[in-house]
């Protein structure tokens, strides 16, 4: 789309008709040149000069009005996915995988998750990514975007110390809601990074089931297991307490399996395992996606000015070659001696 910085300058365009009516070179009162044969060069000059004048004036007017091609987004087919990253902001994420406050050499769970997510996103240039966080309440951090700088800034900002509790259910609901912004072509995935879970209220469970059917997302749960915590994949020894209250993670896993969507859980007990899990998600979520690419604004005025300079150059050349008409007078009949 073309647009102008100063569109009102275009009102001066009629001046470009000036050369069609008025001559650039001088005219003289001379007797009957028409009897001379018409030569091609003269005709070329005769027609060329008004055209050069027209081009010079009109392109100068266009140049001053400042034409530019609007930037914006162009559709683009890439390899990637619509991704919503759902990050746990509960305060336990600030602990290390060993469940302690991290000291010098250790990395907290949230720092490890951030670092690995940054690498992951840097390696997937075509993804549309949205970021959500949850604690006691779900937070929409960044709506789906292709801007890498915004995504990086949003993930970096999660370095702030955590909030309070963990309400996974509403967080998941928000992440699935954010999928409404996704493109129709391309896979849709929610990657949840959390180190714990909580009981999901029955009404939120119902809402999640409906949303999952409606949105058809692929769900990945990256469970950052603290040392000593029980695995989400096994029920434990017979006779051990196994209810939603005592083992919310296990029961969240079971609930997510029943959602009727593609779901996969990864259990990571250290940064290396997180890296492996993320790599695997990356492999599974690389499919063709119709996304968009931003193009910057492009100024076009220099083209107009160059054209005007060329036309004005022709006009100048014509003036330079112009010679005043001076007919040869008949020699006087008598000379003064």
């Amino acid at each position, binding site marked *: 789309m073309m647009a102008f910085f100063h569109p009102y300058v275009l009102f001066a365009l009629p001046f470009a008709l000036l050369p069609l009516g008025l001559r650039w070179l001088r005219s003289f009162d001379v007797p009957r040149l028409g009897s001379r044969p018409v030569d091609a060069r003269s005709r070329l000059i005769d027609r060329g000069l008004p055209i050069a004048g027209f081009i010079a004036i009109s392109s100068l007017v266009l140049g001053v009005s400042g034409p530019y091609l609007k930037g914006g987004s162009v559709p683009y087919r890439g390899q990637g996915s619509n991704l919503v990253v759902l990050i746990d902001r509960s305060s336990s994420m600030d602990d290390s995988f060993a469940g302690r406050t991290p000291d010098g050499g250790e990395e907290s769970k949230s720092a490890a998750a951030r670092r690995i997510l940054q690498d992951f996103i840097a390696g997937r240039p075509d993804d549309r990514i949205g970021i959500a966080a949850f604690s006691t309440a779900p937070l929409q951090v960044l709506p789906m975007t292709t801007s890498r700088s915004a995504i990086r800034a949003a993930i970096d900002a999660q370095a702030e110390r955590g909030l309070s509790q963990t309400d996974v259910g509403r967080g998941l609901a928000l992440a699935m809601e954010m999928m409404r912004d996704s493109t129709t072509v391309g896979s849709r995935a929610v990657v949840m990074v959390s180190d714990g879970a909580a009981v999901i209220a029955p009404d939120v469970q119902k809402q999640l089931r409906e949303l999952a059917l409606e949105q058809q997302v692929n769900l990945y749960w990256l469970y950052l297991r603290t040392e000593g915590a029980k695995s989400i994949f096994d029920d434990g020894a017979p006779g051990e307490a196994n209810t939603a209250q005592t083992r919310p993670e296990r029961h969240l896993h079971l609930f997510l399996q029943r959602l009727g969507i593609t779901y996969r859980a990864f259990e990571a007990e250290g940064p290396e395992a997180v890296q492996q899990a993320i790599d695997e998600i990356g492999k599974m979520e690389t499919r063709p996606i119709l996304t968009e690419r931003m193009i910057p604004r492009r100024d076009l005025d220099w083209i107009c000015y160059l054209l005007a300079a060329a036309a004005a150059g022709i006009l100048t050349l014509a003036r330079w070659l112009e010679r005043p008409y*001076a007919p*040869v007078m008949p020699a006087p009949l008598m000379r003064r001696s």
Partner: protein
Amino acid sequence: MRWRVVLPATVTGLALLAALGLGIPRKQHLTDALVVVDITRSMNVRDMQGESRLDYVRRALRDWIAARPCGSRIGLALFTERRSVTLFEPVEICADFSSVAGSLAGLDWRMAWEGDSMISKGLDYSLDRARELGVPLIFVTDGHEAPPLPYAGPAGFAGDSPGGLILGVGGDAPAPIPKFDDLGREVGFYDPEDVQHAPARIGAPPSDASERPGYHPRNNPYGESDLEGNEHLSELRQVYLQDLAEDRELGFLRLADGGAAIDRALLQYAPTHSVRVTRSLSPLIGAAGLLLLIALWLAGHRGFTRTERRFHDYRTHSHRGFLRRHIGVVGKSARSYAATGRRDSDNRGRAL
């Protein structure tokens, strides 16, 4: 004669200069900011011309950011309880405007993880956070502390202030605060008995406590004071916010003062960093060339030089003496006589 060539050559030169896109370099002062938006319940009060305060903040901030110069950076955070939480660190506003606007539009009171609204604590936390990020702070709030501050008032600010502004929102008349149920449906307004009216009973009691009903030096050193109050209504607490701002080297103004006022205040209260921008001179140069060309065309299409006018005179009046003076001219023009007119009916030729 010479001007007839030099002036068109000037037009050509001007057009070429314009095409080069020359510009004058200029220093532009930019300010970054971490924008912290209060999302506590009192921000739902609908006293901004019928709009809720939060709706107004979203719209006004978006318009303000849209009008800022490219290169300035904005981070977004929200405040509730006694701290803020940063959604994203400062990003360049032109490249990431849609993300900033999208996140701003997504701000909602439902994001609040707790219902408290301890403005002064939240402000101090936000100042620390902004200093960590190395940007000034813009704190957007109505100044409604809930629960009310202790008698001693807000704690003083000890750290280094990164500078910035407090932007007040809300009307001057107390207005009711909408109340929502568990599922987020509006169910009326807060009643006087829903909220705490008296300052928190922490710290020193007020100096007039002994005159209050129910005062007892040991058992009730603060006196009965939670009997009535207007904490269930909310208005912009401008004086309180001005005091807070002054203590923390911040400026205070109302968000409704407009973007230009905010920019001016930011220049005054926040450190700036300057970038060199070039302002293109091309339109000016191009316009000069255009005017010159039009003027030339109007003036020059049948310009007679002095020589020709004399020649004209000669033809009509006297032949004598002319040729001897202009013999050189005659010789030249005889050669260039070749390219001439073509129309039979027109006896006025064109000479090149």
